[in-house]
């Protein structure tokens, strides 16, 4: 990732264990970027769009959103809709990382502008492997700066 302008990884994941495992495995892939975790949708939205909800707060930030669809207060789809519907955040890559492999759900996410959809593998080895590869992928990704 662009070292001059550090990319922040926003991790929206309600299961703290999963969050920790994801973080560990991303780190193992050599990604050293800051990871900001959120355990619910409301806090995440507040951070992403700012207290005024306009998204102006992101100006100059480089964000990558790691999104779980099953959240206690809202669905990840709502967050995805808001992020991709806001002119300041719509270019930020969103990686949906969730347990659901329902075809309609996947289609819906891509329709709404999700950049990557990953189903969490059931077994841990597969899970760890997938996250590591995702980390490797992150390390070569170009992230645009928000307007």
């Amino acid at each position: 990732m662009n070292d001059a302008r550090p990319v922040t990884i926003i991790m929206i994941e309600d299961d703290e264990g999963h969050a920790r495992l994801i973080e560990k495995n991303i780190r193992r892939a050599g990604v050293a970027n800051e990871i900001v975790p959120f355990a619910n949708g409301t806090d995440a939205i507040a951070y992403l769009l700012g207290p005024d909800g306009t998204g102006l707060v992101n100006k100059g930030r480089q964000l990558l959103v790691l999104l779980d669809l099953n959240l206690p207060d809202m669905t990840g789809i709502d967050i995805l809709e808001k992020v991709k519907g806001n002119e300041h955040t719509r270019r930020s890559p969103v990686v949906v990382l969730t347990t659901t492999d329902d075809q309609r759900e996947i289609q819906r996410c891509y329709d709404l502008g999700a950049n990557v959809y990953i189903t969490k593998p059931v077994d841990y080895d597969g899970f760890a492997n997938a996250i590591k590869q995702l980390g490797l992928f992150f390390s070569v990704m170009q992230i645009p700066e928000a307007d």
Partner: protein
Amino acid sequence: MPITSKSFVRTTALMLLVGLLALLGIVGTNVWLVERSQGYFDEVTEARALRRSVIDLRAMLQDIETSQRGYIITLEPAYLEPYENALPRVAGGLERLKAQLAPYPAANEALAELEQNIGFKLREMSETIELARQGRVEEAVAQVRTDRGKAAMDGARAFFETFLSDIDDQLTIGVNNQRGTTNALRWVSIGGGAIILMVVLGAIWTVLRYTQELNQARREVEEANSGLEERVRERTSDLGKANEEIQRFAYIVTHDLRAPLVNIMGFTSEMETSVDTLRTYMEGKPAEDNPAFDEARIAATEDLPEAITFIRAATRKMDGLINAILKISREGRRQLKPDALDLEELVNNSLAAVHHQIADKSGETSTDLRASKLVSDKLSLEQILGNLLDNAIKYQQPDRPLKLTVRSRHLPGNRVLVDVQDNGRGIAETDHERVFELFRRSGAQSQPGEGIGLAHVRTMVRSLGGDITLTSQLGEGTTFHINLPRDVRSYLGKIDR
């Protein structure tokens, strides 16, 4: 109280019996009474004839007497004419009376007296008339004046009076008897008629009520029938929904169970790595004379790795179970694609897929497919057959070569029966139903497996609108019977409605 067909038959039969008895009574009494009436009538007729004879005889005697007296007084032969006419008939009249009275011996004495009186009177009259003819009128008158003739005539008259009054009495009795008989006949007829009428009315009432109830019952049956179709459709649709609900539930539950499991497995893995590090470090340390160090060393090199091994095994097992449920629920949610299928092709493909496994152990396969065309979901059928064939291979009897037969035939109601028969180790009777349950296995646990296969098969067969059962003899072999609709669309149509 509703009339049951049994009580209906009993009541009707009883009423018919009562009616029959009444009829027989009427007929019998009628015959008897008519007979009696005939008897009375004969008696009356007889009495009338007798009366006539008596009156005739009396009239004759009176005619003769009047004629005799007239002649003696006038000596005119014209007065003698009635005498001449009647005289020859008297004997006949008397004879007739005697003949009529022959059955009554009680009258014999009076009759003899009458005969005597008549005879005397006739003689007396003929004597006086003879005297008068000869001109000896004085003598004739004297003869009459002796009153002997009058006495005889009075005797005869008294007989006639008594006799006539007796006959009249008898006639009255006879007529009364006959009237009584007629009355009895009338009452018997009226009584019997009333009974028959009641029986007939009762029978009509019973029949009407029974018919009414039958009609009512038929209407109810018709209503129930028309409602039944609707209800069956509703129930089928409800069942389909409930089934969908359960599968949805299973899907959600497994998903939610999976999330914490990933944590457990993940952190176990993390822990394993840490423990490995710790163990390597501990093993490298030389032994110390410190009990606390020894314990820590044992914990790091033996206890912790052992605990982690068990945790891993348990989580792996749980993972397998959750995946199994997930697989089945996903199968239930899968959209079925009804296609026109050739069962023969399908079975041959499935057999070909396992051919080498069977041939390796010199087993053999055969097919007898009499029903081959059906409309169903190809993927489901392939998986069903594949599972059953795999099981047959897995659980074959080691000491004899496998014999596998797939048969199919039509069943009434537009259904197809597919039998998959093997000569494997068989399933104990107590497990015939159990093997279809999730996570249940039967017999020696000599083969790896989680007890999913047959549960999965049953789920798939049922989602195709069919059912699967088995017959098996332990140690002899097993036959699975798959009963499927010939066209799965008819079943799917019922659920969607």
